């Protein structure tokens, strides 16, 4: 009895998975980067109110541009593998053996190395190019803005209030930070007691305020409007309430405001009662005076600074 055997169906041609994954990835990566650049970037913190803020926003956007394709590749490959190479009913065979792929390995190592090194160079340049990127550079800043019309503003922190001195206007002092638009500003940040941190959020400026230290940070306000200043260093019980506001005004309005303030403080005698402008102030001076007063018996209180018997010496 002759047996008839049906001919085996021809094996289904395996699609080119690499091309399919790459095609999906390139479309989504392009879409994601376009969305990041044109839709998300304008809303990225800290905004673009100043040169340093604008650079920070640009930096974050570039990082996102670089990260999105990598992240999408991982997700797409993961999803593709789940859909196409999952275990199917009745299929008990092992998958094909893996023997490595020099090309893929080299591409992965080379690609990620290029991305990391490029971001390293980009980040370093971005710290330098915009005059220190709005961060405190210490007493001897290396990266400075060009030009010689710097507005000097001293930021003085104390528990729990920031005040601002303008040495180019007789050393007048205020509790509100007012700046002219399109003029580079040098912030000289210091403290009269503990460590604070001056954080002008919308300006993209952040610098620690240490007693006896002049910490310099630069920026150039580029838009009119208000901004907030917060302390970003835990500095005591009212740290959370240590914030105030500032505003960027036109150069003319700034001159009017500054000269009016200077005249008012001169008239009231306040300018005479302030100490001469200095890059930092010795907080021990007044408390030492207080100790003298205690010795003389004419005060019931006297704060002092790092007393010798205190076990916590700096």
């Amino acid at each position, binding site marked *: 009895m002759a047996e008839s055997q049906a001919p085996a169906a021809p094996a289904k041609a395996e699609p080119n998975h690499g091309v399919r994954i790459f095609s999906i990835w390139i479309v989504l990566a392009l879409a994601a980067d376009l969305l990041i650049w044109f839709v998300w970037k304008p809303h990225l913190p800290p905004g673009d109110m100043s040169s340093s803020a604008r650079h920070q926003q640009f930096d974050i956007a570039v990082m996102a541009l670089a990260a999105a394709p990598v992240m999408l590749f991982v997700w797409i490959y993961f999803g593709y593998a789940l859909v196409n190479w999952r275990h199917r009913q009745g299929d008990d065979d092992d998958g094909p053996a893996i023997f490595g792929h020099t090309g893929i390995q080299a591409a992965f190592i080379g690609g990620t190395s290029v991305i990391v090194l490029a971001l390293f160079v980009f980040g370093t340049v971005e710290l330098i190019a915009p005059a220190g990127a709005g961060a405190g550079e210490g007493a001897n800043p290396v990266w400075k803005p060009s030009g010689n019309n710097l507005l000097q503003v001293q930021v*003085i922190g*104390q*528990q*729990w*209030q920031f*005040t601002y001195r303008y040495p180019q206007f007789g050393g007048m*002092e205020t*509790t509100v930070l007012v700046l002219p638009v399109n003029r580079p500003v040098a912030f000289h940040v210091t403290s*009269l*007691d*503990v460590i604070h941190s001056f954080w002008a959020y919308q300006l993209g400026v952040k610098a620690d305020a240490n007693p006896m230290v002049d910490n310099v940070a630069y920026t150039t306000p580029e838009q009119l409007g208000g901004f907030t200043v917060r302390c970003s260093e835990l500095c*005591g*019980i*009212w740290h959370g*309430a240590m914030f*105030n506001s500032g505003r960027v005004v036109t150069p003319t309005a700034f001159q009017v405001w500054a000269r009016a303030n200077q005249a008012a*403080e001169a008239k*009231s*005698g*306040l300018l005479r*009662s*302030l*100490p001469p402008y200095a890059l930092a102030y010795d*907080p021990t001076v*007044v*408390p030492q*005076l*207080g100790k003298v*007063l*205690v010795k003389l*018996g*004419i*005060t*019931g*209180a*006297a*704060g*002092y*600074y*790092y*007393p010798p018997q*205190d076990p*916590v010496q700096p």
Partner: protein
Amino acid sequence: MSLPARIVTLLVAFAAVVAGAVFIVVHYLGSALPVVNYTPEASGGAVNVVLQEAPVNSVTPRPDWVSYFVQDPKTHAWVHTTLFQVPENTRVNMTILGYDGCTPLRNNYFSKIQGTVGNRVTVQQFKTLSQPVGPTRVYSLIDSWANCSVAHTFAIPSLHVFVPVASPVTALFNSSACGTAPCTNSPHSMEKFSFYTPKTSGTFRWQCFIPCGGGFLDGNGGPMQTIGYMMGNMEVSG
């Protein structure tokens, strides 16, 4: 260990835990600072608030640091607290009795009176409660470095109110400074000023800017970091 001994030990341990919890609730939560309510006393769009600065706190088992006191508007008793309530959109006529000696400001900028009506205060010195010394003077600035004439400050930073509070006449203070709080008949200054509360309710912290935490690092420890002494809250109610 026998079974009865185990049970007794367990019960004792349980009782100790319960006692500890009760102690915490009573001692800490139960000793919350009182809020002196001035709101019912407001009339004609104004309210009178009276504070006192005492060199020591001697009326409670709490630390004897330099401290503010708030006067109860109904009984006129001094309450050891720094929490008081006033109505919104109201003129606060503040009177501060300064019984403490002078200490210089760390930042003399706060010698300038700011945020009060007219940016001014009036100061009358007293030898005793009923014995004024010299005329009432008006100040827009009390230089704490030049004359050592400021004891503490009353400042509400978010309302831009900064007021240095005059200390008593030094010679009088040296001869008979107040040693028991609340102070009554010792040499003191009486400083008056007014400011307006905001049109919306909220909590506004106030503080002293003088580093008057004697014996503490920076002078800013102890009473400067503790609500009920040299800092507090002004509750503005609707």
